């Protein structure tokens, strides 16, 4: 899926690396940010290493002031993220006092499935709709974790997901973490503290919500992809924004910063 793009770039990089860099570019210096485990953590700490040195990064375990040491942490409480922390608190503190309160500027979450209004499913795969009576999933996934709390409370959040038709669906079977629900001002009906997803960053490009309808549209494609490829890999009728454009390839400095964070090459193996 993520074959190196050796033919196109002097510094070969993978699709996963491009996705992480494009995600990191969304993080601004000084922001209060919360990163989940895995790719989103690499994207966030890449931003810190490259252009956002004063980002105030935390994990949902309440691990503050730290950065990964020795490679991608196995989890958000892993020893690899516990060797240089300045404060350890709790989930209630990180996800509650700092996220549900509305203080957190930006979060990064992953998805098994995402739909055109940015709703995320990480709970299970069913054959067809669930129906009026809850029934067992064909495939059980990981559940919501802290992503639901970030989706409800962060001022904005980013969704990182591999771009495949089975993942980009018209309507997710199960909403684990709310995006814009049915679109428009649906979030306001529930009184969510946070603003909703500001971008979906994929292995092929970047989608952003329409300001009124909140339907996600193609905003940009990577040097190795194209609007056609992205539309073909999206199971809903993806609109292409009039301002859509090709997104810059990673600079050598970006690649260097990312690989410093991704010491063990997790993003290059995939």
């Amino acid at each position, binding site marked *: 899926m993520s074959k190196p793009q050796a033919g196109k770039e002097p510094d070969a990089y993978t699709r996963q690396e491009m996705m992480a860099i494009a995600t990191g570019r969304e993080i601004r210096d000084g922001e209060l940010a919360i990163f989940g*485990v*895995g790719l989103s953590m690499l994207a966030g700490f890449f931003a810190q290493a490259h252009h956002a040195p004063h980002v105030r990064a935390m*994990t949902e*375990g*309440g*691990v503050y002031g730290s950065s990964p*040491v020795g490679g991608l*942490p*196995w*989890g*958000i*409480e*892993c*020893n*690899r993220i*516990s*060797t240089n922390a300045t404060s*350890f*608190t*709790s*989930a*209630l503190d990180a*996800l*509650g006092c700092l*996220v*549900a309160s509305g203080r957190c500027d930006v979060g990064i979450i992953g998805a098994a499935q995402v739909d055109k209004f940015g*709703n995320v499913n990480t*709970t299970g795969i069913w054959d067809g709709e*669930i129906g*009026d*009576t*809850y*029934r*067992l*999933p064909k*495939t*059980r*996934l*990981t*559940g*919501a*974790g*802290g*992503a*639901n*709390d970030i989706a*409800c*409370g962060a001022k904005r959040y980013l969704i990182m997901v591999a771009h495949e038709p089975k993942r980009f669906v018209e309507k997710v079977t*199960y*909403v*684990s*973490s*709310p995006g814009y*629900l049915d679109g428009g001002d649906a*979030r306001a*009906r*529930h*009184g*969510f*503290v946070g603003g909703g997803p500001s971008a979906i960053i994929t292995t092929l490009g970047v989608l952003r919500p329409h300001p009124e309808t909140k339907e996600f549209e193609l905003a940009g494609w990577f040097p190795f992809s194209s609007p056609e490829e992205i539309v073909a890999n999206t199971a809903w009728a993806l609109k292409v924004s009039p301002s859509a454009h090709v997104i810059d390839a990673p600079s050598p400095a970006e690649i260097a910063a990312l690989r410093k964070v991704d010491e063990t090459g997790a993003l290059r193996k995939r």
Partner: protein
Amino acid sequence: MTSAPAIHSDAAMPPAKLISLPEAVRRYTWDGMLYASGAALPIGSDAVVFGRELLRQGRKDLHTVFHCNSQQLNLLAAVGAATKAECGFSGLEVFGFANGLRRAVESGRMALEDYSNLSIPLRLLGGALNWPFVPATVNIGSDLQDRSAFAPEDYPSRGKIGMVTDPFTGQQVGAFKPLKPDLAAIHVTMADPTGNAIMLGTEWSRFELSRAAKRVVLIADAIVDPACMRQFPNLVRIPEMVVEAVVYWPHGAWPQSSPGMYDVDEEHMRAMNAALATAEGTAEYVAKFVSAYDGVESYLEMIGRERLAKLSATATAFLMDPYRKWVLPAEEVAKIQAGSQAA
């Protein structure tokens, strides 16, 4: 307790509560109970060894509360000992999906009620404070609220996460049901023999849980002199007065990690999860890693001394430096335990 500075020697101490792991499980667990694990996320500090002992004593029909799934729930689910679970997250982070849990959920042998990583601690806080409900600004408006695995017909469910009217604004807001587990088996880095505990790394939800649970058993990687607690009282987030018993079990979180003590055992994390993917693999795992030891020493032998040394050479070891001088040697812990278990 030999090394307490003279200045503390007159202070009254509650009795030691050190007991063996089998004794703790015999005394404080039963079939069908509401059992909570006190852990730090799926790959961190969790008393996985307590779950092994639950299986050794044949406990079944457990209704479990795991803020996050861990290898403990993965194992209990794989064996079929847990028939209900309430979780905020049910994977194994970078180690992937939890195969034992997955098999139990997909086959219908275990009903998994989904919450999030904030709603579980909020529900525990509600239990700790004896609140009637906890206002919910998360989980609402999604299928975490609308779908209930415990009450499948209730759709859109309002029995799981209800709605109440805010008396000040008149707005409808969500309401979580408080949790009061029958027992919390909480993993801590160090405890003194009476049950004062210090946790290194994120405490995750162990503070709220220690107050929400009807009974608390600590499983500690190290037993320290009470003088350690008097040196760092601000760090004692679990005081002895909420603790029923203390179990000394080094490497009790294995194959998971315990900051300051040991790293995650990557190889065993993968091998264990692979084994739990099938009934045969699970039976083999139980024979090799649940039934195969008899006490702390043979448990450590089972893991392997060389492997333990490697895992203990963690980059976080410096976190233990301030406490090391108060760590009691195993012989002294055994002596105290012999007295307190009999009492």
